């Protein structure tokens, strides 16, 4: 007889299996709409794989696309650990980018070793500051942070558009709403020559390692986990619940802000209102795929970035819309939720009657 039994304590490797399974399931499910368009399914997936990792160039493209996703993924993972539903990484990313541009386009003139950190710091600070309001609203007015962070995304994007059409518009930009380019001292150097991959990726990886250390080994991490798992018990035990929430909000916002700053300082060199094709929202998917583990954010980001980069390649070759990538990512989110549930059960094979 086969039956489902509840697993009290799913092992860690199992959640990794669930994530990989969810990623594969998402790809498999996307084959259905892909087939409906009449495109060759196997060929399309092969093109996607080649586009994402078929050559050194392709792979560096994927890693460079993964960079902002690591940051926004960390933003979501850290916040979700404390049950703070920061869905506003998209807005915080733009706030970070805007601050990076404000500092890095000549307002401050410093040598590169000082200016680059300053640009990144400005981005982190702007992201953190933007997250402060929803956290305060939550703590002070019990206003649901999901709604406030989501609505702030739209406000920030409009604000960015306003700045790009107004005070921060590049006079040399031929009328396009874009900022002035960053000065050379503010630009993040490339990792590989002639490729777009920049040191922002390195910083992202370091941030993920630090975040993992913080969660596992520090008092802050202890408090974040305690507040997230059971806020009333944390409060009863005397842990600083309010301060932890604020700290988590600021850290989460800072991560998302860094995503924007690195995109500007490492990849684009200037700011436009279409800087992010939804990195903030994809960060939520990344975080869920990682099982809210900061280190897990790295492979999860690379997967999601690979889907995006691969879909672009595939789209260019056979003309299937690259919105397919968004479809895969959305499917992956729902699949990993179900997968996480599945890890809590195990299939048991039992024999009803004794052996003969």
């Amino acid at each position, binding site marked *: 007889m086969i039956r489902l*039994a509840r697993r*009290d*304590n799913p092992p860690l490797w199992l959640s990794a299996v669930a994530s990989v399974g969810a990623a594969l399931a998402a790809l498999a499910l996307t084959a259905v709409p892909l087939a409906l368009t009449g495109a060759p399914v196997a060929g399309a997936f092969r093109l996607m794989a080649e586009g994402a990792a078929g050559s050194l160039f392709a792979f560096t493209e994927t890693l460079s696309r993964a960079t902002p996703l690591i940051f926004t993924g960390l933003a979501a993972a850290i916040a979700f650990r404390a049950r703070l539903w920061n869905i506003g990484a998209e807005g915080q990313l733009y706030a970070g980018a805007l601050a990076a541009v404000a500092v890095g386009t000549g307002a401050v003139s410093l040598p590169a070793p000082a200016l680059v950190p300053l640009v990144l710091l400005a981005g982190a600070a702007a992201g953190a500051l933007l997250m402060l309001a929803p956290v305060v609203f939550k703590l002070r007015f019990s206003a649901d942070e999901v709604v406030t962070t989501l609505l702030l995304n739209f406000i920030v994007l409009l604000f960015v558009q306003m700045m790009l059409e107004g005070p921060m518009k590049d006079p040399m930009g031929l009328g396009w709403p874009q900022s002035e380019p960053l000065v050379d001292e503010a630009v993040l150097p490339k990792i590989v020559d002639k490729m777009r991959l920049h040191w922002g990726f390195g910083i992202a990886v370091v941030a993920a390692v630090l975040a993992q250390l913080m969660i596992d*080994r*520090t*008092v*802050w991490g*202890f*408090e974040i*986990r*305690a507040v997230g*798992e*059971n806020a*009333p*018990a*944390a*409060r*009863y*035990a*005397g*842990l*600083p619940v309010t301060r932890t929430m604020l700290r988590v909000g600021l850290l989460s916002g800072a991560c998302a802000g860094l995503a924007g700053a690195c995109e500007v300082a490492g990849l684009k060199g200037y700011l436009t209102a279409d800087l992010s094709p939804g990195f903030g929202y994809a960060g939520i998917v990344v975080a869920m795929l990682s099982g809210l583990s900061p280190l897990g954010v790295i492979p999860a980001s690379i997967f999601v970035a690979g889907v995006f980069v691969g879909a672009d390649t595939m789209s260019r070759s056979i003309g299937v819309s690259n919105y397919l990538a968004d479809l895969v990512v959305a499917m992956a989110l729902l699949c990993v939720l179900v997968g996480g549930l599945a890890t809590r059960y195990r299939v048991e094979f039992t024999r009803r009657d004794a052996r003969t």
Partner: protein
Amino acid sequence: MSAARGPQAEARAPARPVLSLRGITKRFGPLIANDDIGFEVAPGEIVALLGENGAGKTTLMNIIFGHYVADEGEVSVAGPDGALAPLPPGSAEAALRAGVGMVHQHFTLAENLTAFENIVLGTESLWRLSYGGGGARARVEAIAASSGLDVDLDAPVSRLSVGEKQRVEILKALYRDARVLILDEPTAVLTPQEADGLAATVRALAARGLAVIFISHKLAEVVALCHRILVLRGGRLVADRAAAGCDRATLADLMVGRSIEVTRTPRRPGGPPVLVLDHASADGERGRGALREASLVVHGGEIVGVAGVSGNGQGALAALVAGLAAPRSGRLEVLGGTIRAADPAAMVRRGVGRIPEDRHREGSIGRMSIAENLMLESVRDGAFQRLGFIRRRAAREHAEEAIAAFDVRCPGPDAPIRLLSGGNMQKVILARALERSPMLILANQPTRGLDVAATADVHRRLIAARDRGAGVLLISEDLDEIFVLADRIAAIHHGRLTPSFATETLDTRAVGLMMAGHDPTTQEPEFETAGGRAP
């Protein structure tokens, strides 16, 4: 299935049963919650189902009511013609239709609806254009009047008292023409006087032919009210006998299976005051259950018990002593210092050991390890962190010591605490609360839901703490517990705290009166309060 069922043989076989259980067995993993249970109940009979926590009472009732499906066995209910018909398993709706009504310990009422709306909920087609038509109102009123269940039908349930809510629950069952009524621990939430009122109602209903199953672990009320007594222990039915002539001591032995004595040494008076409440008021949750001008002194070396039906301000009182709230007016002194602001961490630093009411909600963090739960209150101490990094070896060693000292049965310090049984989880919480030898201990419902052995262990540790000179504030709904542990007893009613009286001078009736807000001073006991003598 043909194995001898010894105890049943003793029972008088009821004529034409209305409910019949045969061979009910239910397993949860390796645990056998119900093991081959069978009995019958006749119309008009009041049957007690006695058993300790974990004996399988609730599981059995959930099977009868269709919330669980039994692995083996059959539940049958008599139809209108009196012939028994098996109940389809796992269907609450079928149980309801067959005339089985159940009043759960935690009420199943929608608080945003009125009493009447709760009663008619689900009794008519969902697609009708209005509810409560077709004389429903008149029927509910008639049933209420004839059974003496007095309730304001148009009041939102959120405004009803506990007793009224219970009456709504019984009306729900009667409105559905229940022929079997199951009451799950109905008196746990009532004062002794309210419980008497309930007993009268139950007798009247039984006289009209209703079969009642009365679940309880209180021997006295069961012997007084019921016709027949069934005893469950460890999932098995160990006794089924007429109540008349039943001896409480024997029942107790049947229920527990072994006797566990808590030795109680007389208190040594004269410790310094460790907790002083002087006309202290505090808000309750959601504007209910506030504490009003409470005065109380707890000295070192004594246990002061606060009796009362839940929701009468215990929460606010506990929140004050736990540091979750500050008094809105009046004075709160803890271990010599005056408390002005809510700060649980400061309470811990002052040396208050706190055992919260709900070990899942406030006492532990289920998915964190036992070691982490043990250092929840002290993670910022130098012992456990250096420069913001957790000293993991120190934490682990500390946990191993605590696990050994408090005899916590667990896979190890790194296991998530939610895997532990209630008793072992409570031991972890006790270890955390008691390890630094606090001089004031708040014990809020410290044994709720624990089995006999775990309860005895908690009691022993609280008495040991008292004997080394700590003062204990014990808040409990369980009067037996209060009488076993407390040196002095106060009661709380509508947020008001009565003066406290030496335990020797009180009996259950007197405490019951205090819990109902009456003055028990006719007995002229000796007492002491912070606010002066009672009139």
